[in-house]
């Protein structure tokens, strides 16, 4: 490709014109601080010339620089890693750091700003170096997270509370005619922020303590019972004392198939993994060849475990047949569905399984590069998987000519940065490419046009790990477990009001009741009120669903979904109005904002629910969420309004249904399409807003 890059030095700014894919880059003002520069250079290496932010050398750089760009230096996909590097080192990303990153990666600052502000784990204002992200999502709320967060905020201080509050503040600022003076230094002390589900639902309440600095730390606290524990952990990290103990295996992991190694294998040791039968599957795959592997996977009828339940064999076959090259493999480990923690357990406790399975998938589909897009909130998984990749490399199980074959394959971990939507496969591609995590419209599908516009196979962690046994046993043999349409086993993330929350692996076909029995039933012998299947994007079912068989087909026929395997139990004491509001708020916070039905619809859904909660449970009960107030013109307006102007409940319920239909029908991606599903099914099946005796004797 005939691409050239022409730099012209302007008087006050650097203009960079990239022909071929025309880019006129203006970087104005602020220079990076030395630590910021060091953080970025630590990732990208020292700058090659004055044009890319290094010291200017007249002899070498001249006045005009021409370089091949697209092939050689187009490294926009390193935008997120670069932001992470600065965030980890400094705790926030300044304009100087932004400018330097833009210069290094040749990205327009406005676009980079758009990317930076998309992800909630990146800060654009100074913050204390140690921050506690405390989960206040549905499972943790059932264990008193709301009160705990409030008291932690009082003890430690809250810097704008939740990520969405930060975004509100940013928006309010953007909505001033001109931006006010930015804070230049971090406020002292630690900070408590609210976080969406941290994937520790079996051990609530969870908190993630992130410390920025030369040696950045990230530790997950589980079973947090008091705000003092959080304050103590913050103080420990700040003083550089031993950080809080890392989380260990979940309280209950029950399973004999893909979970069989967990608790027995040493996740840090390749030898231990091999002693448990590891890397036999890859050897067999290399032996039989890619076509045979795909045939076995197709014969197994393995359906995707991430939520969409697409046949894996068909996906692999489509990518393998694509003539465009190269092919890419992406392991979707951006597990963010509230209530889901299965992938985290697999990655933390058995990381080699995912690495081996990715190698097999890469071999079958003709990929030479694989990415694990790992949730930013999973520090332990990141550490373990990186270690596994390194060990596999050292043993010749990754890299050039694996096990002496012609097959070469490499895996790279890319960290998410706090965006649920990036679990959507096309949003994930955009995120990997250094763009805002906005879903693309399909078709074209990833098998045809995926990551970097190339054929791409995307699989969930659990899906991939299943492939190991399929290759070893043969697809037909493997498919004998489960039902005809739902083959194999499934991981269920059981949480909420059960005696033994945890990860349970069951063959497809068991009932909800049998699963709950395994988990010890509803805690303290209380009555079951409802079950959330599939997470925030899933559906509620009532106590009558205990006999429902857990298979894709039965659950679909019952108008529900297995989604990512969430089974969250709510007993009679649970405040479902509060839960529904939190789910709706989650959808509002996590909407990417691209399409109208989801961007505005999720906000209206929260507003309608707030009205319904107020009307159903009376004015005495304040809206449970901190941001119960509605925004208007960037300021907070108390939600109370004269009763006469409040539209009546029946109308609001009908409006919710119509809004739900439009969001389901007209949104671009699955987030908007399912954003009303839990709310609607809870109202229809659990009659949440219907028979509260406190409601003015209203009959419906």
């Amino acid at each position, binding site marked *: 490709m005939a691409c050239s890059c022409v730099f012209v030095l302007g008087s006050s700014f650097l203009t960079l014109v990239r022909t071929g894919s025309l880019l006129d880059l203006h970087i104005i003002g602020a220079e990076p601080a030395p630590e910021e520069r060091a953080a970025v250079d630590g990732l990208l290496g020292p700058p090659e010339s004055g044009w890319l932010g290094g010291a200017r050398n007249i002899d070498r750089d001249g006045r005009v620089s021409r370089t091949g760009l697209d092939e050689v230096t187009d490294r926009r996909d390193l935008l997120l890693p670069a932001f992470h590097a600065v965030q980890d080192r400094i705790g926030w990303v300044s304009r100087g750091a932004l400018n330097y990153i833009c210069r290094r990666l040749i990205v327009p600052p406005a676009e980079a700003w758009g990317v930076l502000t*998309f992800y909630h784990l990146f800060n654009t204002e100074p913050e204390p170096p140690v921050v506690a992200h405390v989960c206040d999502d549905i499972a943790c709320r059932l264990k008193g997270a709301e009160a705990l967060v409030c008291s932690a905020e009082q003890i430690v201080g809250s810097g704008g509370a939740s990520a969405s509050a930060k*975004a509100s503040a940013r928006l309010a600022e953007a909505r001033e*005619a001109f931006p006010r003076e930015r804070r230049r230094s971090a406020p002292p002390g630690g900070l408590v922020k609210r976080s969406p589900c941290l994937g520790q639902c079996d051990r609530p309440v969870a908190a993630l303590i992130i410390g920025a600095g030369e040696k950045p730390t990230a530790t997950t606290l589980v079973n947090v019972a008091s705000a003092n524990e959080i304050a103590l952990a913050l103080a420990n990290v700040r003083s550089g004392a031993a950080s809080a103990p890392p989380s260990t295996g979940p309280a209950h992991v029950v399973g004999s198939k893909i979970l069989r190694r967990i608790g027995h294998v040493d996740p840090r040791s390749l030898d231990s993994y091999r002693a448990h039968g590891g890397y036999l599957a890859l050897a067999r795959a290399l032996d039989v060849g890619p076509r045979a592997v795909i045939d076995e996977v197709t014969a197994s009828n393995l359906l995707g475990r991430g939520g969409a339940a697409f046949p894996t064999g068909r996906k692999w076959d489509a990518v393998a047949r694509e003539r465009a090259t190269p092919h890419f493999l992406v392991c979707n480990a951006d597990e963010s569905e509230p209530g889901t923690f299965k992938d985290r357990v697999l990655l933390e406790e058995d990381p080699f399984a995912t690495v081996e399975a990715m190698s097999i998938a890469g071999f079958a589909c003709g990929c030479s590069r694989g990415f694990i897009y790992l949730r930013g909130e999973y520090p332990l998984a990141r550490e373990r998987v990186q270690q596994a990749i390194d060990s596999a490399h050292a043993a010749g199980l990754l890299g050039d000519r694996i096990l002496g074959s012609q097959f070469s394959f490499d895996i790279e971990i890319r960290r998410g940065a706090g965006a649920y939507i990036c679990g959507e496969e096309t949003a994930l591609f955009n995120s990997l490419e250094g763009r805002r995590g906005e879903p693309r419209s399909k078709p074209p599908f990833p098998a045809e046009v995926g990551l970097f516009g190339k054929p791409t196979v995307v699989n969930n962690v659990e899906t991939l790990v299943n492939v190991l046994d399929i290759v070893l046993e043969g697809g037909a043999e493997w498919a004998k477990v489960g039902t005809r349409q739902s083959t194999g086993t499934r991981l269920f993330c059981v949480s909420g009001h059960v005696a033994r929350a945890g990860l349970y692996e069951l063959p497809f076909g068991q009932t909800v009741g049998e699963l709950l029995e395994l988990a010890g039933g509803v805690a303290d012998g209380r009555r079951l009120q409802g079950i959330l299947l599939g997470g925030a994007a899933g559906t509620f079912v009532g106590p009558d669903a205990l006999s429902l068989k857990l298979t894709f087909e039965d659950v679909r026929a019952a108008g529900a979904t297995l989604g990512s395997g969430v089974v969250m139990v709510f007993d009679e004491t649970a405040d479902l109005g509060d839960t529904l509001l939190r789910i709706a708020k989650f959808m509002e916070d996590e909407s990417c904002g691209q399409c109208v039905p989801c961007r505005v619809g999720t906000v209206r859904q929260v507003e309608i629910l707030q009205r319904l909660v107020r009307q159903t449970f009376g004015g005495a009960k304040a809206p449970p969420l901190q941001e119960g107030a509605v925004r208007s013109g960037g300021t907070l307006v108390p939600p109370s309004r004269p009763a006469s102007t409040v539209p009546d409940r029946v109308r609001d319920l009908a409006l919710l249904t119509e809004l739900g239909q*439009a969001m389901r029908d007209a949104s671009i991606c699955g987030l908007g399409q399912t954003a009303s599903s839990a709310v609607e099914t809870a109202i229809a099946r659990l009659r949440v807003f219907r028979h509260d005796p406190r409601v003015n004797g209203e009959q419906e």
Partner: protein
Amino acid sequence: MSDTEAISFRLPPRSSQIPTPPERPQRKLVEVTIDGGAVTVPEGATILDACRAAHKDIPTLCYLDTLTPINVCRVCVVELEGARVLVPACSRKAETGMVIHTDSPRVHTSRKVVLELLASSVDLSTADDLQQRLREYGADPQRFGSLAGIATVHQPVKIDNDLYVRDYSKCVLCYKCVEACGTDAQNTFAIAVAGRGFHAHISTELDVPLPESACVYCGNCIAVCPTGALMAKPEFELRQAGEWAPERQTATDTICPYCGVGCTLTVHVQDERIIKVMSPLDNDVTRGNLCVKGRFGFEYVHPERLSPAEDRNSER
């Protein structure tokens, strides 16, 4: 061949025939059914193209012939038989055998709710086309609550330069200005979408004022803005003063006097004063785009620009 050997070069003999371009391969045709009628369009055409060929009126907002379709507004959705959800007409390619309904109850509901969601959160007072669509679909934005009590994008107007005004209270986030500032026209990348969800907004880096950004004031963003959120200053001032009078306005096509490219300008005039300069979207030279001189360099036409000289004359 050695280095010293002379290279002989002779022109090929002149052909006696006038050369003709190679024949273009015949584009394949696809046949789709729209509201019961068969329509044939060339391969690669979108459902929107097919609907237009069938004279179906499909509302659009974020779509423009000169920009890459990004299907974010969702007002052009149609029902495609066999598809789980509605599909955006503007970007979905027509395929043989598609059976499409452009005005089914599902389509109507979705379009109506989408229009209501926009009208309940954005000031559409200068978006005449959208107002018309709201009436057409019987949309009632008040259903979501009184405007004072629900979330809106209301905010102060941004006036930070002499050429144009940004009133993001009127922004429907159609991404058109971002596309025009980026690879679809100008390649300046001064603005992008920042933030997320309902907080997503059009922004320069760190929301700095335009003079501190990469903006080159080509005004191509104004040309594509469908709601008047971006407006040339004269128009904004006339509207503020309540003197905006479309019935007193004329639009005259001329050629830009500045450089040799020869862009077509459409000069809008009210009361003997130029209020804005546009260019036709279907113009071969401009595709609707102009530069800062063509778009804003018209002040010399107005008589008061001459007053210092007149002053000098009167002094003599």
